[in-house]
């Protein structure tokens, strides 16, 4: 535990010392500190992951807090690994990404808050005391708010950041209530005391639902996801990456931690989790496919992936009820594998998109196109990320999704009609999600990187600078490596899954390793087939004429880049079918008459949940609170009067009783 504390100090020192370094070296300086600190954490976490003894550390604090316990069980260690890797990659990426912002007034503050965010995330997953947890949780939310608002001069950035902060605090209320109930019932602030307090089923269900809402707000489960598509586009790319890939996972950590508190939730709870997760998957990816802005699309795709993780967790809980070990192990294994996989490919995608933004200053895909010729490496890395996130074979996304599929398929074998129906529906929804993900990512890759530029692009577009390429290439390699050698994923995940098994006995993961051996063998066969066909093609084409000519325009000679399909038109055909679930406000003026003038078309995407739930609710709250607006008039005399009235009332109250 001591090297963990040391690592936190290194990180903090990095944040504090950044203002004293020269502008040019700030990023490198900071990245060095984060690298060193995260390396320490990684070393510590790997040891804790496989340790027989859970490392613990106690701190005695003054009265209301009491004794704070830090401990690092396999689950904490797993999340430490995710956070540490995510922090390393995004701080390395930031070295290149923040180059144009050199000398911006709040750069030092940005780095300081960045280190604060990393430290608070490390603490969130290790601290085992309610009050300390809530404090670091709030530090995490607030520091990330400031990171989102890096470009504070822009109005919409600040608005998006505020939306994020407010949503987080609403989520916090639910977490707070849950913890208050638990602390009162167990008369303790320590997480360990919550484990076996013998609450009735009604209470545990209620608290679990509260935690699910509270932590689900952070994670981005569907009715509470609306902050994501605003905060991610507003934040600089390395921040969006760390938020989407790592920080929202702390919400998942909270849910999983609360799962370990209660062994006796009702049977309905896993079904509820599965239902919400399916909703999150399908709605998330449907909304993603409607986006024009690359980062918004990625944000919605994060929502979808959180749904997939939730599906794994739901089946994991369900497996304990059905008494089938396969379901539990595959479910949790899939969930944890997807947590770490998503952190890799989502960082990669955000990095690639950020590199595009740095060069073109726009993320609207209707204005981009043909970038593969200008930034070939960046485009290839983006392709790797999209193939991985669509869960196509050979890459890591497939590994975690097939585990969740297998968990659901094992549910089918259990002899209960309800679980049968639920499992089938979630399998088909997951398949549907995968298919829409294909639409989404073929759209974003095809429109942004392929074809011809739709508007004239700046001259100096090229591959991003070396640190950015370094971060991207390492991530792309990891995505491929996990896909080809999935055994290492199971190796890391198995001690974590162990703690969720109801009987607490040691389970042999041999069969799961064997399963993954098979998959990696099959992938090698696939590579062999591809190589064979590649040579067949080369042999057939040898000595033949391969000429290049302009694209066949179906007889139309004066083709231009303007008549290419745009992102909106690409997803339009699908949108027409899914219209009831996606709200798009359209305004169109057709060219009319014998001598038609210009026509035009506007479309504005609106999130259904925002439009039908959040905004009316906000309006209602605002109207109700306006009724009390007169209390805070700004008039000092009046405030003194309030104090006086309060004192008089207090005196009367004391005298009366």
């Amino acid at each position, binding site marked *: 535990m001591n090297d963990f504390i040391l690592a936190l100090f290194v990180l903090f020192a990095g944040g504090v010392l950044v203002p004293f370094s020269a502008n040019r070296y700030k990023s490198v300086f900071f990245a060095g500190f984060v690298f060193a600190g995260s390396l320490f954490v990684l070393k510590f976490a790997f040891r804790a992951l496989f340790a027989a003894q859970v490392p613990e550390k106690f701190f005695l604090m003054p009265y209301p807090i009491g004794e704070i316990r830090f401990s690092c069980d396999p689950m904490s260690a797993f999340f430490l690994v995710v956070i540490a890797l995510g922090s390393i990659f995004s701080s390395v990426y930031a070295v290149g990404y923040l180059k144009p912002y050199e000398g911006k007034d709040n750069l030092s503050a940005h780095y300081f808050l960045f280190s604060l965010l990393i430290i608070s995330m490390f603490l969130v997953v290790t601290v085992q005391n309610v009050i300390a947890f809530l404090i670091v949780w709030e530090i995490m939310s607030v520091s990330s708010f400031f990171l989102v608002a890096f470009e504070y001069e822009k109005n919409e950035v600040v608005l998006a950041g505020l939306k994020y902060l407010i949503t987080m605090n609403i989520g916090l209320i639910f977490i707070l209530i849950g913890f208050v109930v638990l602390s009162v019932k167990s008369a303790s602030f320590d997480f360990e005391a919550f484990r076996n307090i013998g609450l009735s089923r009604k209470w545990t269900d209620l608290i679990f639902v509260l935690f699910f809402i509270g932590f689900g707000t952070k994670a981005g489960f569907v009715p509470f996801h609306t902050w994501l598509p605003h905060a991610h586009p507003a934040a600089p790319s390395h921040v969006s990456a760390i938020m989407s890939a790592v920080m929202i996972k702390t919400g998942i950590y909270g849910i999983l931690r609360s799962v370990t508190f209660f062994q006796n939730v009702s049977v309905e709870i896993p079904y509820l989790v599965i239902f919400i997760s399916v909703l999150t998957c399908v709605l998330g990816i449907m909304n993603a496919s409607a986006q024009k802005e690359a980062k918004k699309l990625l944000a919605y795709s994060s929502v979808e992936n959180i749904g997939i993780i939730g599906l794994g967790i739901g089946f994991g809980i369900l497996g304990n009820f059905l008494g089938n070990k396969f379901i539990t192990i595959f479910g949790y294994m899939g969930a944890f594998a997807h947590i770490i996989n998503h952190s890799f490919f989502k960082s990669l995608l955000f990095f690639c998109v950020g590199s595009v933004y740095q060069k073109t200053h726009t993320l609207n895909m209707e204005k981009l196109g043909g970038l593969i010729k200008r930034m070939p490496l960046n485009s290839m890395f983006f392709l790797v990320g999209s*193939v991985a996130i669509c869960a196509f074979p050979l890459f890591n996304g497939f590994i975690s999704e097939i585990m969740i599929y297998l968990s659901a*398929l094992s549910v089918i074998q259990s002899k209960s009609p309800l679980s049968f129906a639920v499992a*089938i529906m979630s399998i*088909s929804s997951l398949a549907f999600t995968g298919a829409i993900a294909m639409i989404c990512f*073929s759209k974003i890759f095809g429109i942004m990187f392929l074809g011809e530029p739709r508007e004239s692009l700046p001259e100096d577009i090229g591959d991003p600078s070396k640190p950015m390429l370094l971060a991207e290439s390492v991530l792309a390699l990891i995505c491929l490596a996990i896909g080809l050698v999935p055994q290492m994923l199971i190796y890391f995940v198995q001690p974590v899954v162990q703690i969720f098994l109801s009987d607490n006995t040691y389970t042999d993961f041999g069969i799961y390793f064997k399963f993954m051996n098979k998959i990696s063998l099959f992938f090698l*066969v696939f590579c062999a087939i*591809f190589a064979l066909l590649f040579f067949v093609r080369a042999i057939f084409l040898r000595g033949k004429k391969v000429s*290049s000519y302009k694209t066949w325009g179906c007889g139309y000679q004066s083709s231009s880049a303007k008549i290419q*399909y745009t992102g909106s038109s690409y997803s339009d055909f699908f949108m027409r079918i899914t219209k009831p679930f996606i709200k798009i406000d359209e305004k169109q003026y057709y060219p009319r008459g014998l001598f038609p003038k210009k026509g035009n078309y506007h479309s504005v995407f609106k999130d259904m949940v925002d439009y039908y739930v959040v905004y009316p609710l906000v309006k209602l709250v605002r109207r109700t609170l306006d009724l009390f607006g007169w209390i805070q008039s700004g008039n000092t005399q009046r405030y003194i009067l309030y104090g006086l009235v309060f004192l008089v009332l207090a005196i009367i109250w004391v005298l009366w009783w």
Partner: protein
Amino acid sequence: MIKVLNILFLFAVPFLFTGIITRVKSLAAGRKGPSLLQHYYDFFKLMKKGEVISRTTSLIFRISPLIGLSTTIFAGLFVPVFGHKSIFGFQGDFILVAYLFGLGKFFSLIGSLETASSFEGMGCARESTFSALAEPGFFMIIASLAFLGKTMSFSSILANSYINPELSGMIVLLGVSALFIMILVEGCRIPVDDPNTHLELTMVHEVMVLDNSGPDFGFILYSNALKMLIFASILANLIIPPGGNLWFSMLVFMVLVACVAVCVGIIESVIARFRMSHVPQFIFLITSIGFIVVACMILFNFGEIR
């Protein structure tokens, strides 16, 4: 032995399958029609040609037919034929098969988006939507049939789902009809898509491959035919019982696959393609059938009805 036959089946039969369709169509139109082997001649002719490649394209365009074909061949190795076990197999391999088709489709989509042609973009939009709509129904049916087998590999799922008193022919029949629609969708046949249309605006799959030529186009034709054949063999496996004499079940299997081809041909001859806005409704039929299959499975296995 069976494995060699299986591989031979994957390599030799696909164009025969499409050949039968073409022959049935021409017979129905009162023509003599081309030879059954015509598609092989076409394929080899294409393989001998050079290529014309669009100027706007890059690497993606060139490797996309390769990936399309290799995924399809690889997927074929997981699908059982002749009522016997597939060459490869593991728990949940049908998911891999579906995702392999997805990977192939993803690359064909981005490959044709790379040509910067508005027609090809239109084809992409349609094709991706159609496959997205077909997916959930397919998974629903295969997953509910997975209830029957103890394991969840494609071979055992299909081995346990044949017409027998335990299952009732109805579920099999529903599965067969859904898979038949799947063949029409994945093979881009009438009423979803007309492979013979000459107007680019009405094309779906054909328009996506407008710019492919030579060996690349041959690969695309081959992977399309193979994909149809793979779905046809899944369909045939649903009907015939597993095991048994290899040669006999092979004969029955081939006849069934030929029947599927004939049915596709007859449908192509008697109806026109649907209006583009009606095609999604037609494809959604697969999901509807999937729902019925799920309901049937629940009733048969958990309810009192037998």
